[in-house]
């Protein structure tokens, strides 16, 4: 009878009417240690941000000799040194072509971001969307996409069903989209529960109703097992109940300053990075305000057309034409761009690290997933990919490590991030890019 009662209540709610939940909003938002919401004990949310830069890091020289915690950051990553303890560097992974041609600037990313190397027409289900399906439910935006070089096609995020998403290129437009008139303060009192969640919640009660029947003929040990099951069921129901309640207020949320009007989009790398830093602030605030839990940033498309002031050739041209300096072991002019981008990565990380949420920063509760389209830039190779992952995913990822996986599948990095983000997959990828074990060194 109690179950009937609960279902009737839910059915009453299923009209979808606004429900005002009488929680004292300003009272004690977090528990004492600041690790979770006080009201529910629920962990503060985990976020995922991808960050793309084109054309890799260098030939082989960027791979530190040591693995584990005691390693030297390579020259290209020196700007990240102050937060080396908050990042992991991955090296050695490759994308397997399995008989497909290497369509440069595309196939490699297609491989490690979607797990599948196929024709250029197929680009579905990138890592961020698989993660977004798990962590991103119930937020205002499923995800935010931005690109810093003025090219809306530069984004690598693609859902399973709809292909690549188009990116916002203007910081002001992004600001308006998030923090304009439609922005709702997370502390506002009104809330409309999701009918689809109500249906699921209600259906689970049907399983509970099987309990009595099942218990009838069981011995004590089997009864204990079944009790475990129903405890799990109860916690699943609670999870849905929470989704049917007004979300927790977000004390770290504040509205950022609106960016200035845009000047004309130029192709100077420093201008793109200035735009990048505006995006970094907006995205960090959008994450802190619960507007989304997933964001994707691209500096440029893979074939970076950015240039250094006074030098007419662009980054992409340098990777093709510039000889490898025999002493340095890399292309010095191309490296100038790599270092500039990595300074940007540091700035992005600091924008997130500067927002304190209880005992952790926003960065600590996230993974900032930096990736690129090629291994060795000159060859546009699909081997030895650098990945830089910052943040510890709410404590699920260890940081400060260099993880080498020479010859392994680059998809392991994405798979590892998905594991840390709680994506329920026990393997990922197709053919030789199929992986079933994460890089467990970094998983807690």
């Amino acid at each position, binding site marked *: 009878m109690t179950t009937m009662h609960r279902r009737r209540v839910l*059915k009453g709610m*299923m009209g979808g009417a606004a429900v005002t939940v009488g929680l004292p909003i300003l009272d004690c938002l977090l528990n004492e240690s600041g690790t979770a919401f006080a009201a529910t004990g629920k962990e503060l949310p985990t976020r995922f941000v991808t960050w793309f830069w084109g054309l890799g890091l260098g030939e082989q020289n960027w791979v530190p000799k040591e693995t584990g915690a005691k390693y030297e950051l390579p020259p290209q990553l020196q700007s990240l040194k102050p937060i080396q303890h908050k990042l992991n560097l991955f090296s050695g992974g490759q994308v*397997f072509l399995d*008989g497909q041609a290497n369509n440069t600037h595309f196939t490699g990313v297609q491989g490690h971001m979607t797990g599948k190397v196929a024709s250029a027409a197929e680009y579905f289900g990138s890592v961020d969307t698989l993660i977004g399906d798990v962590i991103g439910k119930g937020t205002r935006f499923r995800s935010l996409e931005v690109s810093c070089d003025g090219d809306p096609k530069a984004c690598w995020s693609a859902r399973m069903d709809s292909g690549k998403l188009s990116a916002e290129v203007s910081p002001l437009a992004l600001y308006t989209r998030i923090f304009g008139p439609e922005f709702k303060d997370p502390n506002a009192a009104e809330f409309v529960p999701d*009918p*689809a969640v*109500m*249906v*699921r919640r*209600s*259906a*689970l009660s*049907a*399983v509970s*109703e*099987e309990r009595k*029947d*099942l218990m009838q*003929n*069981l*011995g*004590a*040990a*089997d009864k*204990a*097992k*079944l009790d*475990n*099951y129903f*405890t*799990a*069921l109860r*916690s*699943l129901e609670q*999870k849905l109940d929470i989704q049917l309640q007004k979300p927790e207020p977000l004390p770290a949320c504040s509205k950022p300053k609106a960016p200035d009007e845009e000047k004309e989009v130029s192709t100077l790398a420093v201008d793109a990075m200035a735009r990048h830093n505006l995006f970094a602030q907006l995205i960090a605030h959008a994450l802190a305000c619960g507007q989304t839990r997933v964001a994707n940033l691209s500096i440029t498309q893979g074939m970076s057309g950015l240039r250094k002031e006074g030098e007419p050739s662009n980054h992409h041209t340098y990777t093709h034409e510039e000889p490898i300096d025999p002493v340095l072991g890399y292309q010095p002019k191309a490296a100038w761009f790599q270092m500039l981008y990595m300074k940007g990565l540091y700035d992005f990380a600091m924008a997130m690290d500067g927002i304190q949420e209880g005992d952790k920063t926003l960065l600590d509760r996230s993974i900032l997933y930096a990736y690129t389209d090629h291994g060795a830039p000159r060859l546009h190779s699909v081997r030895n990919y650098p990945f830089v992952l910052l943040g510890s995913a709410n404590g699920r990822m260890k940081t400060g490590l260099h993880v080498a996986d*020479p*010859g*392994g*599948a680059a998809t392991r990095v994405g798979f590892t991030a998905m594991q840390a983000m*709680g*994506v*329920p*997959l*026990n393997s990922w990828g197709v*053919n*030789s*890019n*199929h*992986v*079933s*074990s994460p890089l467990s060194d970094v998983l807690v």
Partner: protein
Amino acid sequence: MKTLNRVTLKRALAVGISLAGIAAGYQVFAADEAKPAATEQPTSLRISPSQYRQSITDIFGSSIAITGRFEPETRDEGLMAVGARTANVSDSGLERYDDLARGIALQVVDERHRATLISCKPANAKAADEACARKFITETGRLLYRRPLKEDEIQNQIKVAGDSADKVHDFYAGLSTSLSTMLVSPNFLFRYKVVEADPAHAGQKRMDSLTKAHQLSFLLWNAGPDDKLIEAAVKGELQNKAGLQRQVDRMVSSPRLEAGVRAFFSDMLTFSDFEVMSKDPAFFPRYTLKVKDESQEQTLRTIVDHVVKRQGDYRDLFTTRNTFLTRSLAALYDVPLVETTDNGQPMHWQPYTYGENDPRAGILAQASFVALHSPAGRTSPTGRGKALREAILCQMVPPPPGNVDFKFVQDTTNPVYKTTRDRLTAHRSEAMCAGCHKITDPIGLALENFDSSGGFRTTENGVQIDTTGDLSGVKFDGPIGLSKAIHDDPATVACVAKRAFAFGAGRSPTTNSDDWKQIERGFKDSNYNFVTLLRQIALSDMFYAVPTQTVAAK
């Protein structure tokens, strides 16, 4: 017995008794006699990921994608299928089952599948339809719960489907809600053993007919019973010999038997360990990720061909020169494999027969064994020997003590100890290690011709490899000799029989019973035909014996 001996070992260490003394007298012993336990054992079994997948494929067809993560499995008495007895469903596990269930249910009702998978049409697709919902729930629920649904269960699900359909104005969405609910139900996720009064023996219990049906189908097909088997069970046919035999005969001649045989050997040969196994590509460039997957498939194909298609002698699996290869595997093994299909086609599996003088024969020489039981950059005769004892012969090898010094074993560039045998000999000279290594190393060293990836070699660090060894007093030289010794060892056939029984029953058999001896005899009389063994088990009384809730400690 297992636990007791471990405790004894630890205690011996703690009080400083010379371990050499204990270890010297330490004999290999059978590892998985029914486990003595002071507390009650559960009898229900959580269905495994492969059983879940196979069931969905059997019920809804192979075009339903099952993408998601399962709860981890645990191995007990050599099998995940026995570990399933103590496997629970955790909070996060149930969330995963819930995600899987919703993913499957949405596909079953989508426009591509509904015409074939839902045998009725609603009067109005935008509203609840009790008649059609009842038909689908009754038919599908019967296969998922492995029994006809009771009327109140049907009513309950019709209500779930109806409420949901009304809410979102979609009959099929309602049906999918109901289906996903059944897919997370303990009735689907667990196999319960239901007992009833035994009319033939007053005061005793027996397994009910439907429980017998699923025990049988999980043994032979690695999935739940089909409609015919449920029907036979409902009619009580499985409670008499003739009826049971009819079903068993039908089932062993079904193509589904192959799935059952594959699942059993994947479990027995511990293929789940491939998930955490890798090789150093600097040393083993031909061991690609593709080869890793293909090496498991090679062994399963060899087994299915030998024991199902040819109905050969189980023992010959260890000596057969017949196998299947792809071009990538052939390159790993350094043998030619001609494929004349056009460029750009995927590689094909081809039957391959090793020559008379080839050092490779049988499944132990395949990468699925020698590579699986080796570390990333070197071989481990101890690891291979231990795996052979435990997985193939059902014997237990004690774990090394915690304070053991591995300095000799791991130093592959040691200028004095150039071969693995040299290094192990140095290691064994330490008294505390000698006893256990005596059990594993003499058989593992015979496989030293196979490097860590499964490639063939005759030298190590420029020194000729010595592959002599012995198994239970039988001396041999090299992998072929070892294969013959395994072939002839009575433990080999005894082991597979016990494992096959346990795979279906979720517990090891009591081997000192007359029933068991009869199964063993039948296996022998059939020239160790594995399908006959399955049939014998499926027809035996002991397979359906009501498991005792408590087992007295010995």
